[in-house]
């Protein structure tokens, strides 16, 4: 051990790993919300990864968050899967926001099959985005989805209740919605950067 080795030579031989994350490429999947894009390290949804959206109650504007993205994808003739949505998607409302409903598949799955169906869709590589509403999802199940999203190069959106916010999650991006006093988004975790503190107001309206 008495030998002195110059640090440079070690680094040069690529035997030492330096704890520096790989540079993050700019995302090609803008969220459609300029304020949110600006706050995210990659400037959009994390590509080929899972985004977890935590809600206090249903109907606070969770779809507003993703509808611009779905509208863009479906207009490019790419497929979107909705797995076990809690309500019926209302076509006039979706179409008014620019979504081509012919590209949207609604999959009715039982509680136990939601994660399986979501994983199949993500892994298939033929869906651009998969939205899932799992009732019971543990850390392992979510990790599977994250891996499947990476394999199938798809965007995964998982909608869960806010009480899961305290659990650790393998999602690349975790957003928490707050409805009081108006719709706001808190970034709980984002890959490739420190999550910005504070709330981002989203000018989501009902029309």
């Amino acid at each position: 051990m008495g030998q002195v080795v110059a640090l440079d030579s070690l680094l040069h031989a690529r035997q030492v790993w330096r704890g520096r994350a790989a540079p993050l490429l700019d995302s090609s999947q803008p969220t459609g919300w300029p304020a949110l894009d600006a706050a995210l390290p990659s400037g959009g949804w994390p590509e080929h990864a899972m985004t977890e959206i935590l809600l206090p109650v249903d109907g606070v504007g969770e779809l507003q968050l993703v509808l611009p993205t779905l509208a863009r994808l479906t207009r490019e003739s790419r497929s979107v899967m909705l797995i076990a949505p809690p309500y019926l998607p209302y076509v006039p409302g979706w179409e008014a926001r620019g979504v081509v409903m012919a590209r949207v598949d609604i999959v009715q799955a039982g509680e136990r099959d939601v994660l399986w169906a979501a994983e199949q869709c993500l892994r298939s590589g033929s869906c651009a985005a998969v939205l899932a509403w799992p009732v019971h999802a543990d850390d392992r199940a979510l990790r599977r989805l994250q891996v499947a999203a990476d394999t199938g190069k798809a965007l995964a959106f998982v909608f869960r209740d806010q009480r899961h916010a305290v659990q650790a999650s393998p999602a690349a991006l975790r957003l928490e919605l707050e409805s009081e006093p108006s719709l706001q988004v808190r970034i709980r975790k984002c890959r490739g950067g420190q999550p910005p503190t504070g709330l981002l107001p989203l000018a989501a309206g009902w029309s």
Partner: protein
Amino acid sequence: MLWACVLLPQLALDGVLRRQPPTDAPLVLVSGPAQARVVHAANRSARAAGLYRGQRLAAAQALLSQFAMVEYDPEDEARWHRLLAAWAYRYSGEVGLLAHAVVLEVSRSLNLFGPWPRFESLLRDDLKELGFRHRIALAPTPHAAHVLTGVHDGMAVMTPDTLRRALSPIPMARARLPGEVAQALSSMGIRTLGQLFALPRAGLQRRFGSDLVAQLDRLSGDEPSPMENYRPPDTFEQRMEWTHEIEHVEALVFPLRRLTGDLSAYLAGRDGGVQRFELELEHRSGAPTRVTVGMLSAGRDAALLFECARGRMERLELSQPVVAMRLVARDLPPFVPAGRDLFDTRPTHAVPLEQLRERLRARLGEASIQHLRRTVDPRPEFAQTTIAGVGATPMASLPRPTWLLEHPRPLRGPPPTVLAGPERIETGWWDGGDLRRDYYVVRTAQGQCAWVFCAPGEQGAWMLHGWFA
């Protein structure tokens, strides 16, 4: 004309072997009357033990103590023969059946499938996939190709000039001449086809009849070969039977893969697809269990058919052991392959969307995948449908929510703040589903935007019908 001959030296044995996953256990087919059973065919490990075709069964049992015995069934063999003809029909419009062989005219197919070496490897890959041992040769006449396969696997003779030279060294016993003729010729000192061709025709005709001369002419191409063209049947039916009983669904997976693979090969030959087929699981007694496999659109990909069938099969509870399985496809609609973009950005291993939908339906149920489309009905309950074929132009841009509750329910909690409204929806006189409602957009105490309605002229007793999520 160029004819490819696919000789199937072990058709009956392969037909039996392909019912179960490949094993090394010795297996023989037996035939003959009960007093004089003989070995009809033996698989590799049985042959290694010294068993051979034509051996007395008693002698075989003396050589090898344990082997599986299956009764040779000529009908079964003929069925496999026809299946392979249906498969060959994919590669040529002129397909004929010869003894233990399928011949196909390929001179025009070469334009489509590439030069002969590539075409030949296509054929071999397919046969290997289907699980049939084979020998292939190419010659200007079907009978010459048939003779050449028996002598030299992979031989290709392209022109009539070289054909005579290729046939010349073939010994009498391999020339596929009638048995007694071959015997008589050998005892006369004629050992090869070349010597036979050199003999004067008139003498041959006098001695052996015109059949032999005609056969020689067909062999060399001097006379056209009458060949009954094979036409694939309009329905597909294939059956597999086992000597033992199968009690678990898992053990049916391998035969199922075979049957769906056969169906796919048959469909490719017919250039058709299948949308619905039936699996019948036969039991020792009682009615067979029927499993109907339906798909969203006509398909013929072997993996897709297998996966759909397996999804249905895995949910099955077997009440009795299975002794045979039959696959029947009667309705064979035309197949339109899904177009794929040349500049498709999806990963190469991607599962096609159709296949994904079938996979989901197989596990989650037939009606688990829906597409919603808008209708012209102004009533929210009927403004969308899952039935295809209705198109409607978008309505005026009135506020419409993104979630709809299937059944409206009372809005609970403190009184909400009204954001917009009312919008009167009063219609439905034509089908008795009249409604008269004032719709409002409200904001609940929890910050949700809701689409609610109440009786006309009132503001209260809110019924929740949707969320502006």
